[in-house]
């Protein structure tokens, strides 16, 4: 068995200092160009796997608008690349594709600020991280303490974070600082299968494994004082970053949809270059079914991150011996980075409702947009970008050019540059936990694989990725955060 060549050798034409084009002439059937936001530092990564070919494949989808887009943290996914953005027009036969969202529906991040400084936390940091991994469910096969009956799960998926407000597990401010106020309208929980409910019953409030984590961080640099002040962030301040999604419930909703849609392309006369792009018109029974179930799973994910934050607050209160609200543990913002949403955008000179798929890509609306919470509308939407556990994460601001260039979207992280097997090989004979500790990061993981596969070297440099989206005007730098402690699966 020989390894096939997995690099991309097709065209990548330089558009400007931060963007490359795959012309639609590259392959017959492409309806639009592919556009990849990257610079000369990242373009070799882009060529190293099949992700760029996937950008070209997405350009085949019926109803696609403007271009098939990819962010600088692009890497090889299944069907769609990670970092992919695709908007389709339902009125022009535009499709919705579960592969454009991914298995982890509404995977996303939330940032919690505190009124603590590095000096407050440093003496108890090890205790804090140890308590987090003891008290917050993390890792494969770890159920949580919040178990929901099928009826309760359906209500949670219909109401989103509001359901947890009523149960005393969220505040009104938490809800207000979550994308879509923690509830995407028109969710159809009754379309979520029994198997998905079974997978999700004890997983709301659990981190999971893979690249998910909870990280204690300190703000080490502020680049935009005005926006940082609006987000309640200052140099030296302790924050907590939470990265997780819709857990087994969401994976099952995606799996169910992929199975249900197997015959849809033939039924609707859609020719696809890769069957993982399986899709149906947004305005079809199959398309509406998927969107209804996907929104329900997305609301579950908002609740998952809310329950994780609630448990983090309890751990901080226990270790620091003060109620969490006196520690100033308020939610800055919660953003989805795997989702499909119907949004209004201007395409050409026409204002229209389009179905925006963001797979490993984050909404980044600029100042004044009506979907931004009142408290942030004057400055712009906070965008949270997790990096890797050794270097940095970023808070950005929805950029002035995001609406015209990327359907109001920016990157979602650093993006992998090493496969899991390559990272494991690279970790052989090393102790990643000790290496991180020498670099000032206390890391705790439930599995050996967790740290080896997710080691900093497995990711691109998030500073470079963020620099590209900043220069491209998709989102601008507000604050850089440095990791202090992390728990992983």
């Amino acid at each position: 068995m020989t390894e096939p060549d997995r690099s991309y050798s097709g065209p990548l034409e330089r558009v400007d200092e931060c963007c490359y084009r795959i012309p639609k002439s590259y392959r017959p059937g492409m309806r639009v160009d592919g556009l990849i936001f990257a610079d000369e530092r990242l373009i070799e990564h882009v060529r190293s796997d099949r992700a760029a070919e996937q950008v070209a494949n997405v350009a085949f989808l019926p109803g696609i608008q403007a271009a098939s887009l990819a962010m600088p943290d692009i890497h090889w996914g299944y069907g769609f690349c990670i970092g992919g953005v695709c908007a389709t027009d339902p009125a022009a036969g535009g499709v919705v594709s579960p592969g454009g969202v991914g298995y982890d529906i509404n995977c996303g991040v939330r940032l919690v600020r505190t009124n603590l400084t590095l000096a407050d936390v440093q003496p108890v940091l090890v205790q804090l991280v140890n308590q987090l991994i003891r008290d917050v469910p993390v890792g494969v096969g770890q159920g949580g303490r919040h178990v929901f009956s099928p009826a309760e799960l359906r209500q949670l998926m219909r109401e989103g974070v509001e359901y947890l407000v009523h149960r005393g597990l969220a505040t009104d401010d938490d809800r207000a600082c979550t994308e879509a106020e923690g509830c995407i309208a028109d969710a159809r929980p009754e379309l979520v299968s029994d198997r998905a409910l079974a997978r999700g019953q004890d997983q709301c409030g659990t981190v999971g494994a893979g690249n998910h984590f909870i990280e204690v961080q300190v703000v080490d640099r502020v680049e935009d004082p005005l926006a940082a002040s609006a987000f309640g962030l200052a140099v030296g301040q302790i924050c907590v970053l939470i990265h997780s999604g819709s857990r087994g419930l969401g994976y099952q909703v995606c799996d169910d949809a992929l199975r249900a849609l197997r015959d849809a392309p033939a039924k609707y006369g859609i020719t696809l270059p890769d069957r993982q792009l399986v899709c149906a018109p947004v305005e079809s029974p199959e398309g509406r079914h998927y969107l209804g179930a996907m929104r329900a799973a997305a609301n579950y994910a908002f609740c998952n991150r809310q329950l994780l934050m609630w448990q983090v607050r309890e751990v901080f209160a226990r270790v620091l011996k003060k109620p969490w609200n006196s520690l100033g543990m308020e939610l800055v913002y919660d953003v989805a980075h795997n989702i499909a949403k119907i949004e209004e955008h201007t395409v050409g000179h026409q204002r229209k409702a389009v179905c925006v798929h963001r797979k490993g890509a984050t909404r980044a609306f600029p100042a004044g947009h009506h979907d931004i919470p009142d408290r942030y509308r004057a400055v712009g939407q906070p965008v949270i970008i997790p990096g890797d556990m050794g270097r940095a994460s970023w808070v950005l601001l929805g950029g002035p050019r995001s609406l015209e260039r990327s359907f109001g979207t920016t990157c979602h992280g650093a993006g992998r540059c090493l496969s899991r097997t390559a990272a494991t090989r690279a970790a052989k004979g090393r102790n990643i936990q000790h290496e991180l500790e020498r670099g000032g990061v206390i890391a705790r993981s439930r599995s050996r694989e967790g740290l080896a596969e997710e080691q900093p070297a497995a990711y691109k440099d998030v500073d470079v990725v963020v620099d590209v989206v900043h220069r491209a005007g998709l989102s601008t730098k507000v604050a850089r955060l440095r990791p202090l402690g992390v728990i992983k699966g």
Partner: protein
Amino acid sequence: MRRWQPAYNRVMYEVFEHTADLGLRIVAPSLEVLLAEAGVGLFEIIAGDVGQIRPRMERSFDVAGTDPEWLLLDWMTELLAAFTVEKMLFREFTVTVHSTGLHGTARGEPYDPAVHTLAHEVKAVTQHELAVRRSATGWEATLVVDI
């Protein structure tokens, strides 16, 4: 690249590289053995080492379909569901393919954190790079699981 060679000849799976996920490539003398080996490969990814799983209990599965690729995908998905919903870990598999689908048995035990360590959370078995084909010596397949 991890390779695993069972006692009988000409059967093998290996885990191959995929940027964010893990791929499985299987070679076997027959479709039935290939499907059984794919089961071992899946639980090697989940548990890291299937040797820690004791074959104390048996579960049966019936999967409908005649296309070998969909059959492999649906069989893997059923096995994954047995882990994600009922927390079952398996190490031994027997598969019979018939005219309308397959009948499979899997032997293992429920996950017990005191006994088992787990390596990966497999979100799903994907259609990406899914291929099942005849080869000069039997059958071979590739599939990618989402981590």
